[in-house]
């Protein structure tokens, strides 16, 4: 089924894109991540221009996270106050991201920076997740209980001025910490087309020390609004949001997310985490190969923009 993408200016097999969306939707349903980290590289690999891929993947993450937000908010799993601060930081981050995007594009280093960000972020988070889930699995096998992790925020966070009470998260910390966290994920969303859930969740747990019951819901809440802002920002600056591509991805991902959510209830959470870690590491390894061993293309063409 050939579908012509009017912004990307090329024709793709619609079924492949729907299946790709379905795959990332499945992941997002199973793990509570947006799945953007997989969509963008796969789209680029398929031949979609990187900017269009990142811009359109963001709107797919919006669609994939919305039902999750509803589900979590019904259970009281969203800290709106914390979410609000994160969203504010995130929106600021997308603005900074847009400026960085423009600067790096004019320098011709945008692709390299995106690749390095992918390798560093996915590599480190994948490793942490894999190590943790293996530890948990070993502990379960030997019967010895893991020492319970004390829930507390990172010492650096305590040094920040101004403190607010976040009731649902069970925290009394400076709002600057979540604001900065939101800012960083906002930049990442703009540059990489990811929702940032896979880095938000660990950061909320281990840096902010939030209560685990509100972590996933609040991160989805932040992702929802930040990806919406990213789509707007891309529409206004890069003009690279391909609606046809986004709709195809959405068809796949919204149905995949539902199936994934049902699958997640059957499988053991530890194994799911290990599986996610392996997928994340594979994507990172593929990117690292292009960066250090041999890139796909030595030469790249971009339209010449005259300085305004």
């Amino acid at each position, binding site marked *: 089924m*050939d579908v012509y993408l009017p912004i990307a200016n090329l024709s793709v097999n619609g079924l492949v894109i729907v299946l790709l969306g379905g795959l990332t939707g499945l992941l997002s349903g199973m793990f509570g991540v947006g799945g953007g980290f997989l969509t963008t590289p796969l789209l680029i690999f398929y031949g979609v221009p990187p900017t269009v891929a990142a811009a359109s993947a963001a709107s797919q993450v919006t669609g994939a996270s919305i039902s999750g937000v509803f589900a979590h908010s019904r259970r009281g799993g969203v800290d709106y106050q914390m979410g609000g601060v994160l969203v504010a930081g995130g929106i600021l981050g997308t603005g900074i991201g847009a400026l960085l995007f423009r600067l790096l594009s004019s320098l011709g280093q945008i692709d390299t920076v995106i690749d390095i960000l992918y390798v560093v972020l996915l590599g480190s988070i994948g490793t942490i997740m894999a190590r943790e889930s293996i530890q948990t699995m070993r502990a379960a096998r030997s019967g010895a209980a893991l020492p319970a992790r004390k829930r507390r925020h990172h010492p650096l966070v305590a040094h920040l001025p101004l403190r607010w009470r976040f009731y649902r998260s069970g925290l009394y910390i400076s709002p600057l910490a979540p604001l900065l966290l939101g800012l960083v994920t906002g930049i990442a969303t703009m540059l990489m087309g990811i929702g940032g859930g896979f880095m938000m969740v660990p950061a909320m747990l281990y840096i902010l020390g939030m209560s685990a019951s509100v972590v996933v819901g609040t991160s989805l809440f932040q992702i929802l609004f930040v990806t919406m802002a990213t789509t707007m920002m891309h529409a206004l600056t890069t003009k690279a949001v391909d609606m046809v591509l986004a709709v195809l991805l959405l068809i796949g991902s919204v149905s995949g997310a539902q199936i994934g959510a049902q699958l997640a209830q059957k499988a053991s959470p530890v194994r799911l985490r290990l599986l996610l870690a392996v997928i994340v590491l594979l994507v990172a390894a593929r990117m690292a190969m292009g960066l250090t061993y041999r890139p796909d293309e030595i030469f790249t063409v971009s339209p*010449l923009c005259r300085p305004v």
Partner: protein
Amino acid sequence: MKRLLALSALLLLTGARDPILVPDVSQHEIQVRQGFNGTSLLLFGAILSPEGTRAGQDYDIVVVVEGPTRPIVLRQKKRVAGVWINADRTTYRSVPSFYAVASARPIKDIVDDRTAAIYELGLGALQLSPSDSIDPAAQMRFSSGLVDLMTRNGLYSQDEHAVSVTGQVLYQARIFLPSQVETGSYTAETFAISHGRVVASAISRVEVRKLGLDLAIADFAQHSAFLYGLLAVTISVAMGWIAGRFFTPA
């Protein structure tokens, strides 16, 4: 006076020796709309000797289709401290976004390099002049890199068996335009070549334009970016929400 007469006679004679070329293109307008998967352009026509007889054997036909030109930046990746980054760049004032040449036998057997360069016959003869002043070796490296990249993307091609001549009078060539062609004004030029000299040429125009929904979307994204973004956000929110309602049992 005598010399002038001789000259005009020569001119008349050579003029009279030019063949008659009657070219046409299967489509003068290519419509890029939903489901567009590239299209095959048929360039055909007749080649007659000046006396109006069959002339297919005496002339080589070379067909060139060229897309709109644009200024570009070409970047080259190099390994710096173990990482491949864009290390070198050059700009070109005008590079055709599409270029395809078709002939019946290898172009190097038809014309010499100089003629090939003058008429831009063949991928090796494309006049890609960088606007930065760089040394010829680097220029060569960039140009061949660009041609190679465009060839693998299906935007540049050279087919030396794509022209066929039937009954020594009708020629035809098929050139494929992939789905990623740029919109704009394309030229299809036909050359009749004899003994390494271009003796006749004719040009036809082909317009590639977006139509219908795709034109609307591209225009919308370009001209009302804010509303377009808003619509994209609304669609994704609505689709996610509907799917959530649809799948979750009440």
